[in-house]
């Protein structure tokens, strides 16, 4: 048996699994997005019509799609930097020689990641209840008027961002921690001998050395945050005044609430295209940064 042949044999199981459980459903969804599959088609397949790009065209003319996209971009633009900042900060604290009880702190900071999103979202809903929540109670102690966190269209999204950041920063923190530990200590020693301040060490050693890690974490976080769904689903149900409807939430509504699977698939592919473009842009920007 020659080697390419046996190589194919070895990857065949993985390819079959990928093909059946990933590629095939994706292709089926793509075909679905070109049809008007809905309740009537479910009842009788003869009610299915091929509509070409009609679903996409209609979506691009729907104000709700654009506002959902706006909310999602808001969530990504505010959530990703906050989340990455919190992760990096926590990782640096844990990596600092001054830190004590590192295993305990590491576990505590990682704990939110392994909790169930629905369970903690319910707890956050209690914390942010306008009248009985602890947040407003604390604010009241320092004399700040109660805020209707989840009922006010202006505050609902920031509350969800805070929740998502708290929930997710632990995961990236672990990756950053590994990245920080891989930086050779000699670099810091040399910098100290040259009299570099802590800030300059961070700016000129830590950040450049972490760049590949940052890029990976950035791409993973951005693509994860574009798929915002569970948080608004549990905490606000898309409200108030549809101010927390994300693109994925719109897809859920279209597909599973109103059973328009055709147009729901189109939403999914539009979101995919947007995420693909954003990721490509991030890769290109990072590459440009490499060439001085």
């Amino acid at each position, binding site marked *: 048996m020659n080697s390419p042949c046996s190589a194919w044999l070895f990857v065949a199981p993985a390819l079959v699994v990928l093909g059946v459980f990933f590629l095939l459903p994706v292709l089926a969804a793509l075909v679905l997005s070109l049809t*008007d599959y*809905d*309740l*009537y088609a*479910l*009842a*009788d397949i*003869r*009610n299915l*019509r091929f509509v070409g790009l009609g679903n996409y065209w209609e979506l691009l003319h729907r104000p709700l799609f654009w506002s959902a996209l706006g909310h999602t971009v808001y969530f990504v633009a505010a959530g990703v930097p906050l989340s990455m900042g919190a992760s990096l900060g926590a990782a640096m604290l844990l990596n600092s020689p001054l830190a004590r009880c590192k295993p305990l702190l590491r576990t505590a900071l990682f704990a939110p990641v392994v909790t169930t999103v629905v369970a903690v979202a319910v707890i956050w809903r209690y914390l942010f209840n*306008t*009248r009985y929540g602890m947040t407003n109670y604390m604010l009241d102690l320092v004399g700040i008027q109660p805020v*209707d966190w*989840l*009922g006010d269209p202006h505050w609902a999204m920031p509350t969800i961002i805070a929740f998502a950041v708290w929930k997710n920063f632990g995961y990236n923190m672990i990756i950053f921690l590994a990245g920080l530990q891989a930086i050779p200590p000699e670099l810091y020693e040399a910098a100290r001998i040259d009299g570099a301040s802590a800030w300059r060490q961070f700016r000129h050693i830590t950040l450049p050395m972490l760049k590949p890690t940052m890029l990976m974490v950035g791409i993973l976080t951005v693509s994860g945050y574009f798929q915002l769904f569970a948080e608004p689903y549990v905490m606000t149900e898309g*409200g*108030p*005044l*549809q101010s927390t409807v994300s693109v994925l939430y719109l897809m859920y509504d279209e597909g*599973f*609430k*109103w*059973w328009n699977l055709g147009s729901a698939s189109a939403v999914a592919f539009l979101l995919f295209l947007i995420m693909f473009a954003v990721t490509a842009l991030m890769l290109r920007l990072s590459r440009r940064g490499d060439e001085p």
Partner: protein
Amino acid sequence: MKPGERAPRSWRGLWLAAIAAGGVLLGGCAPASPGTQLTFWTIGREGEAIIKLLPAFERAHPDIHVKVQQLPLTAAHQKLLTAFAGGSTPDVSQLGNTWLPELAALDALEPLQARVDASTVIQPHDYFASIWATNVIDGTLYGVPWYVDTRLLFYRKDLLEAAGFDAPPRSWAEWRRQLAALSDPSRHRYGILLPTNEYEQLMSLALQQSEPLLRDGGRYGNFESAGFKRALAFYVDTFKLQQAPPITNVEAGNPWTEFGRGLYAFYLSGPWNIGEFRSRLPASQQDDWATAPLPGPAGAGIGVAGGSSLVIFRTSKHKDAAWQLIEYLSQPAVQQRFYELLGDLPPRRSSWQGTALRDDPKLRAFREQLEHVKPTPPVPEWERIANEMQLVAAEAVAGRLTIDQAAAEIDRRTDAILAKHRWVLDHARGRRP
């Protein structure tokens, strides 16, 4: 629940179960007892009360075992459609009568007219006519009403009397006068609470008009009719005149306490609130509130015919047993007991003869209103249309659209939602018998 405990509902379901369980649990899939196992889906709170009614049924029918599965209201719609797509529908289910057209369009439900004709228990003329009518889609009967629901006025008798009104309003003009007298926005007092994210209130006013909400047999929206515009204008004016606060039910928080404090003199809501007001307001205030039928544009008004029915799924293998369960739950005595357990109003006039229902003064308005209710348009898309109607109405309340613009916008959105419905009506007629 382990998959092995589930009885097979269809061959497709059995196949899936067999694949999932690797064939090992196949033996466990067979029904444990030689009798019939009926799967009964309930939605929301009804599931808890029904469990107390079933032992008597199972004693009378020892060969039938009923397995109740409770679906939460928020997940029920999705679960029903997924079950249909996956071929795992139950034998019997509770079904909200706005969802009935949808499942009938899917051809998922068993027609029931022949069974009703042969039944000695279920007498159609004993049911409120409009409620019964919501179960008839294109001339075919698909469900038997289980409990009814309509929206009407809860009002503060003492506040109305203090303002010089000795009776609740019977017409919109009278209602407007009372709202004006009872509102004082500077003291945060409003005539009525109409949460801007609930469509039932505006829909009730709209159903009172003589024009239907959809035209051409459910092909297009009819929201630009003079009648709907009149209803929308009345609704929007209530906010413009500051007789209702422009808030959602999330912001309204606890309307019962605020109604008790006199922040609102009227509250347009459904029968479950009788129980809420009884438990949430102090005993000293129980004589201060009452219920009244909905005022109409000119004289007594019409309400929305809501509620839930019992249906049998077409794929059920135990339709006779399922029908026996429906007959049992339709007996006036059982319906009275159901009311006592849960407060759900029965759909049969004879069930209302029970003392608990007949003698309750707070229920009298409901009894009266139920003779004057109108169903919502029987198209599968209705719930979505009502949602869009309310979203646009909320824009009009916020002052972003005029009445004419809002009506046109609702029609535009409705026509887009109904596009496929029109196509199916035009093309499917030749195919279906």
